[in-house]
């Protein structure tokens, strides 16, 4: 898989070691991540697959620093720097991007204002206006987004597909070192899935980032080809393999990875 990374791009490494985390619930504290280990290099696509409720999204949010999730142990190193010691915006500036399953609405803040602010913060300086306008319009065209989109409020009133395209647009503009995609395929019809996937592939070709692709289904893997497939169940990785593992999961489901007596359908 090492040949995926080209020599023109810098090499980066995201290492997750023994990560444990949980949340406070009404019934008390609940441990969700029970020792997660994973290493991703520039250019690699790692598909994380697993049953509902296994902690996949928790992993994504914990890596990005959502305050709801409390880390109990382990470390997450981006080129040796411990992300867990950083605030969410510092992690973003260090090069970590999370495409969310449910992008949040921010009324009254235009997409264009939001995008330019974000790019300025992540890159450390404001892009020149001309270059910015050009880049924005090119990327929006690529994602088949209406130019009027830029004037709308962040995610407000967006359809499911529009929200996901907006996430990919941000991924493209912010040029992260690592991208986590949290069920980006959920709620997309076939056409939208293709457009979004093409967008991700393009961003990856240009920016050579590493991808952690969290999904429940194999459908998106027909468009975004994984180098590795991991099975995540009950808060940790239980199996790893190549792309062929995805096909096997499509056939057999996740039941075999669940604790005794719990079936996938019962959990959902």
């Amino acid at each position, binding site marked *: 898989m090492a040949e995926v990374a080209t020599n023109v791009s810098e090499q980066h490494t995201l290492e997750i070691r023994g990560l444990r985390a949980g949340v406070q619930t009404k019934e008390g504290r609940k441990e969700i991540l029970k020792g997660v280990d994973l290493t991703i290099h520039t250019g690699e696509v790692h598909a994380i697959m697993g049953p509902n409720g296994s902690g996949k999204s928790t992993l994504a949010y914990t890596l990005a620093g959502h305050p709801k999730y409390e880390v109990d142990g382990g470390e997450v190193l981006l080129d040796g720097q411990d992300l867990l010691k950083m605030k969410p915006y510092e992690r973003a500036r260090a090069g970590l991007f999370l495409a969310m399953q449910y992008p949040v609405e921010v009324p*009254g803040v235009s997409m264009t204002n939001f995008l330019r602010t*974000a790019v300025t913060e992540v890159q450390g300086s404001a892009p020149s206006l001309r270059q910015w306008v050009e880049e924005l319009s090119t990327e929006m065209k690529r994602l088949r987004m209406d130019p009027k989109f830029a004037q709308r409020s962040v995610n407000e009133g967006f359809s499911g597909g529009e929200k996901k395209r907006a996430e990919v647009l941000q991924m493209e503009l912010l040029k992260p070192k690592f991208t986590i995609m949290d069920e980006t395929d959920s709620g997309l019809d076939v056409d939208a899935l293709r457009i979004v996937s093409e967008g991700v592939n393009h961003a990856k070709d240009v920016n050579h980032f590493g991808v952690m692709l969290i999904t429940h289904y194999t459908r998106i893997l027909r468009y975004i080809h994984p180098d590795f497939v991991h099975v995540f169940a009950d808060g940790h990785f239980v199996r790893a393999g190549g792309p062929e593992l995805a096909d096997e999961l499509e056939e057999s489901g996740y039941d075999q990875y669940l604790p005794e007596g719990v079936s996938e359908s019962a959990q959902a």
Partner: protein
Amino acid sequence: MAENKQALTADKPANERESADVEMGQYVFDRTRANDDKIEADEKILAEFGNGYNYGWHDSDAAGQAAKKGIDENVVREISADKHEPEWMLDLRLKGFQAFLEKPMPQWGVDLSGFDAQDFKYYVKPMDHQAKSWSDLPPDIKNTYDRLGIPEAEKQRLVAGVAAQYESEVIYNSIREELASQGVIFCDTDTAVQKYPDLVKKYFNTVVRYNDNKFAALNTAAWSGGSFVYVPKGVHVTIPLQAYFRINTENMGQFERTLIIADEGSYVHYVEGCTAPLYSTDSLHAAVVEIIVEPHARVRYTTVQNWSNNVYNLVTQRAYVKEGGTMEWVDGNIGSKASMKYPACILAGEYAKASTLSLSFAGSGQYQDTGAKMIHLAPHTSSTIVSKSISKGGGRSSYRGLVKIPKGAFDAHSSVSCDALLVDEFSRSDTYPHVDVREDEVTMSHEATVSKVSQDQLFYLQQRGIEEREAMGMIVRGFVEPISRELPMEYALELNRLVELQMEASVG
């Protein structure tokens, strides 16, 4: 409660009553007699309670220091005599004072239990004559206006006219010559009583009666300053007229009285800003604004109120809108300790239109009870209320509104939308909408939302590299955007800046 006050006044010892009789000349003071110790003490208050408020300084204060507190009939007569008013105005003041005594304190809205009308100074005259130019002002007053950026705005021709009220008096008033030559009048209301008695007598006390409510009654008794605007038929004043209200002394009661008459087919935009120093005790701002919108005229009245957090802001604003006329209130309430303010429109003629856009910000220790009233008295009238409030740091904001459509006002349209934003877990927002519709053939809509700045919103923006404080600022600016986009550019920036200052005070 009012009865008690009256009793107190009557029971005053004779020597105190005598002191109330001292000539008004005593209120004009040598401003060099500044009290340095007092300024120093106030700097400390500023440092302690300032909390991001940028307008909390005050000037040397001889006039205010010497002014006495409290109101009784003599004070009312003195104010009138000092202004050499005609008999009818004195009579009206006295009727207002009587109504003030008789009206009960409101038992709803903000907490007025600590309010005592005798705590305030009713007439502080900082200068003997209105200044002809900014440079005629005493240096520290001029300095205050410089810091507020008012002369600069005039110089840059961002405004078509300026009125600056300091304590009880309008100390500077100007209007562009080309407007004056078209017959536009823009002066302080005291001057108008002298120079345009017919116009004033015709309209004064017609939209807000002397006995409308307790504080309008108090204003009628003690009013001083405020703006008088008359726009002749068909004249469009395309650049705003600006008024700036400044309280300087401690325990000041500012009672400006504004009267705007837009004659047929005319247009005017009047903008007012307000600030005051921070003191440990309270001041009072009880203004009355009366607006007459003649047929097919349009008036926009914009307020960016940023009183310090020791000012009671109890204001009555009302417009009477005739056939085909349009009235627009844009009301930003950022400051004050407690505000009660419900800009109202009486849609008296067919096809009259009105809107109120209001924004209030209730920070720590603040209670903003604001809203709007729309009274539809004619067919085909329409009104829109958009109210937004932000509460943080334990502040409380309420929307209180009235839409009234009596029988006969058919084809009336009304829409009300209230959005409240809570920035933290312990602030409060309430909505008190009152709708009274007696006509079948109307359309009426009301929607209200309360939202919280969510952890998820903050996280989302932070995940895109934006710091928490800036993320919070973006969310709040976004919430305010529907109001700020209606303001002239420089006021929109000012509003955003004020909101940001308030937000910083909460984070820091």
